[in-house]
């Protein structure tokens, strides 16, 4: 059974399943795409862990990405913040590993002790993508454990910010589950004890009635005062703030039911509404739980701190050591290695800085800095290691000062949801009807009936079905969007989505696909010459060279001699005695005749100019179609931090030139959104980088577009997987349909309420009737909303 392979393993890397290069790596008769994958296989086979490959085909992750440094994990102060528990013998730590994706991952990571016996235990939480490792700290250090994980291809994502939040949210959810458990337990028991009364007790059994009644009271007390406590608190605070929401009639209904149950049972006049009360709170809490369910593996509230490293390497008296990011001060000399992020504004002291600011400014082309120049925080160093001196603390750098904007201190003021608005009128109408019925019977002189009808109205109209229609509808939408790779932060975002009338796009990484770049050659080039270009470019670490090699996709054949690289300008060398030059037009020695709009690489072989390679940003799949669909009913804007070299290609998409802005700073973007909002636009901002963080925060719905949902994405309301980018109009359609479903289910529950009120105002409401009506209306609403949402989703082609 285990030997059956469903896919063609001949052309795939045995470890990660990537396509094999023209000359694959061989080991143990297996083929690998890179040394990284081969290395992981070797470690696993040395430790007799090859079953990893038995549970799933190609379970590994590609090892082509560069790996970080973990020296800082030796620092006791950093370690203390990260670990869950530590004593003289053992350390327990929970690490977040985005690469966890299949059962092989679980198997391997729970067998870590076979690789290093100092690991006592490792447990995976698959849905949260975390592993909890207990290890003997005498025998192995935290750094060694993390490096072992990296060596087998499971690099943990270490960030101080996420740890704290996770524990808090866990506690509140557990609390709610406990309340549901108590309510459910009491509901079941009260139902059993109430049945005899409904079916009628013979005179002989009458003594049981009081006994059952008292037991019912006993069950109602924990339900009312423990499970239902939040409704009283919420109603009280809302009243104090002069807001009428659904919690007020709910709290009122609960109070009246409890009092009347108490009164009827003590005086022996009736059975009370104990079962309705317990059922109501039980269903309400389930609705609340549905609404609160969140994605454990996604974080929507990240700021720059989780993008920055946990620690930086500082140089003091010629020695390097790690320092927690928070302690980094002005005047520190820091070492930034290749592919590390610059954590604070600093002056370049040593080395050749070539920095990718695409995530910070949206600028797609790396920037070269010379000695003595200021390098702003947030850039990623692409070249070799550099040394810098910090001139501003982390929190006050050019980039992070964005987070000092007021937009980040105030809660987003949401427009009132439909249920908020409706419940205000509902509460007022309810009080009027109850008061009216009571006053009528009082007037006719039947005081007993007056009290009965007044309380009955409050009981029967208790808006349980009403309170459940929103959470159940929205939760159903959330799970449908989730299946389509659109992850919303909370259910409230759905209603906000339905109101959107303006879309603002960021350019780099949002509407362009960061992975796929197109390449064209202007001029004539032979296959042999392409080979030469490829072999030369393979020597360089410059992103354009790397991209060129990747796109040419030919095997390197010849070695290069006399290789020189002028940072930011070009590369040259001799291959097989032929002189090859690649680079900017100035580097090649061309007059600046027609400087192309996009970044170009010019080619000169043996002194003869052949032409240039043009890199073109490629729009995400379906972008044109998306713009066409949206432009029919919405306003479209573009905000880019980049230079305007793509402007001419974008003009057909965005109706007027005023709606396209280039060279926008993060602050500009935020202001632009604010200005649009002052014209009463409901804005959806789509962005990907830190420079969009302010705009994402300010907009009505901020959507972070990403190709890997586990990567860092800025603070937002929703995360959209790049693969689902073209489905955006369908998502908006679905949100609008969801609002329709909410309206319809409000109508249904109001109809049930009207039916109950007919009996209630006459003062003839029997407990049995209430006990049947309440669950019946609830079940109707749950069925209606979930079926309707699925039907709409099918119509919108989301299912």
């Amino acid at each position, binding site marked *: 059974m*285990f*030997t059956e392979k469903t896919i063609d393993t001949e052309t795939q890397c045995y470890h990660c399943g990537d396509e094999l290069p023209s000359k694959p790596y061989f080991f143990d008769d297996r083929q690998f795409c890179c040394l990284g994958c081969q290395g992981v296989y070797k470690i696993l086979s040395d430790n007799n862990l090859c*079953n990893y490959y*038995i*549970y799933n085909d190609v379970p590994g992750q590609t090892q082509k990405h560069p790996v970080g440094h973990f020296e800082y994990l030796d620092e006791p102060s950093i370690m203390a913040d990260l670990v869950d528990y530590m004593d003289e013998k053992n350390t327990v730590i929970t690490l977040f590993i985005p690469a966890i994706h299949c*059962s092989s991952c*679980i*198997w391997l990571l*729970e067998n870590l002790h076979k690789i290093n016996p100092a690991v006592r235990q490792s*447990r*995976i*939480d*698959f*849905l*949260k993508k975390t592993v909890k490792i207990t290890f003997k700290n005498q025998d192995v250090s935290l750094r060694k454990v993390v490096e072992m994980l990296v060596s087998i291809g499971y690099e943990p994502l270490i960030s101080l910010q996420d740890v704290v939040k996770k524990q808090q949210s*866990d506690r509140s959810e*557990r609390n709610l*589950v*406990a309340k549901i*458990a*108590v309510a459910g*337990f009491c509901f*079941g*028991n009260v139902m059993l*004890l109430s049945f005899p009364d409904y079916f009628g007790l013979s005179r*002989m*059994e009458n003594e*049981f009635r009081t*006994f059952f009644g008292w*037991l019912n009271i006993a069950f109602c007390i924990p339900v009312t005062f423990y499970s239902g406590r939040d409704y009283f608190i919420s109603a009280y605070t809302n009243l104090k703030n002069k807001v009428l929401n659904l919690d007020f009639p709910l709290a009122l209904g609960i109070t009246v039911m409890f009092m009347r149950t108490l009164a009827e049972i003590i005086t022996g006049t009736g059975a009370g509404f104990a079962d309705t009360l317990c059922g109501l709170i039980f269903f309400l809490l389930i609705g609340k739980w549905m609404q609160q369910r969140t994605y454990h593996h996604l974080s929507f509230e990240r700021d720059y701190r989780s993008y920055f490293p946990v620690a930086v390497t500082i140089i003091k008296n010629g020695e390097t050591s790690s320092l927690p990011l928070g302690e980094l001060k002005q005047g520190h000399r820091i070492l930034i290695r290749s592919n590390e992020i610059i954590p604070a504004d600093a002056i370049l002291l040593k080395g050749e800085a070539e920095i990718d600011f695409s995530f910070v400014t949206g600028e797609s082309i790396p920037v070269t800095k010379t000695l003595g120049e200021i390098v702003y925080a947030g850039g990623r160093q692409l070249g070799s290691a550099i040394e810098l001196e910090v001139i501003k603390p982390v929190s006050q750098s050019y980039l992070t000062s964005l987070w000092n904007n007021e937009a980040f201190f105030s809660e987003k003021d949401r427009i009132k949801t439909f249920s908020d608005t409706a419940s205000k009128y509902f509460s007022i109408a309810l009080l009027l009807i109850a008061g009216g019925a009571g006053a009528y019977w009082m007037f006719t002189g039947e005081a007993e009936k007056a009290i009965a009808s007044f309380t009955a109205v409050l009981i029967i109209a208790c808006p349980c079905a009403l309170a459940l229609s929103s959470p159940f509808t929205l939760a159903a939408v959330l799970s449908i969007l989730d299946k389509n790779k659109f992850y919303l932060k909370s259910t409230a975002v759905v209603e906000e989505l339905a109101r959107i009338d303006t879309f603002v796009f960021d350019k780099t990484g949002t509407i362009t696909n960061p992975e796929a770049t197109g390449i064209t050659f202007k001029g004539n080039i032979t296959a042999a010459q392409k080979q030469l270009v490829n072999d030369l470019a393979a020597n360089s670490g410059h992103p354009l060279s790397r991209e060129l090699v990747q796109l040419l996709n030919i095997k390197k054949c010849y070695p290069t001699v006399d290789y020189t690289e002028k940072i930011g300008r070009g590369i040259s060398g001799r291959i097989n005695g032929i002189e090859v030059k690649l680079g900017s037009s100035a580097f090649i020695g061309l007059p600046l005749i027609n400087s192309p709009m996009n970044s170009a690489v010019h080619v000169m072989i043996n002194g003869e100019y052949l032409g240039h390679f043009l890199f073109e940003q490629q729009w995400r799949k379906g972008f044109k179609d998306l713009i066409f669909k949206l432009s029919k009913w919405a306003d479209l804007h573009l905000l880019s931090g980049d230079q305007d070299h793509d402007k001419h290609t974008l003009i057909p998409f965005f109706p007027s030139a005023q709606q396209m802005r280039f060279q926008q700073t993060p602050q500009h973007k935020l202001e632009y959104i604010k200005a649009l909002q002052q014209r009463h636009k409901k804005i959806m901002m789509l962005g990907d980088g830190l420079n969009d963080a302010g705009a994402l925060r300010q907009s009505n719905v901020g959507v972070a577009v990403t190709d890997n949902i586990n990567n860092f994405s800025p603070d937002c309301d929703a995360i959209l997987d790049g693969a689902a980018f073209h489905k955006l109009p369908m998502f908006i359609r679905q949100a609008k349909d969801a609002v329709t479903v909410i309206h319809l289910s409000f109508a249904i529950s109001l109809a049930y309420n009207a039916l109950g009120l007919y009996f209630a105002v006459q003062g003839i409401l029997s407990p049995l009737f209430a006990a049947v009506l309440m669950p019946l209306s609830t079940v109707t609403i749950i069925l209606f909303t979930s079926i309707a949402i699925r039907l709409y989703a099918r119509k919108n082609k989301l299912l």
Partner: protein
Amino acid sequence: MNMIYFLIGCSIVLALIFLAAFFWASKTGQHDDTYTPAVRILFEDEPTPENHAKSDENHV
């Protein structure tokens, strides 16, 4: 009929025990991860081909 009092008492005590068990499970984090244990239980100790052959032999 007084037996009813006793029976109801028993049933409630029993139900309370289950409720307590649920609380204990929730407190010790048994509901935190509802997916991984289902996968974990399917792993054999050493699912090597030799092992498989041996276990088959025993059945024959």
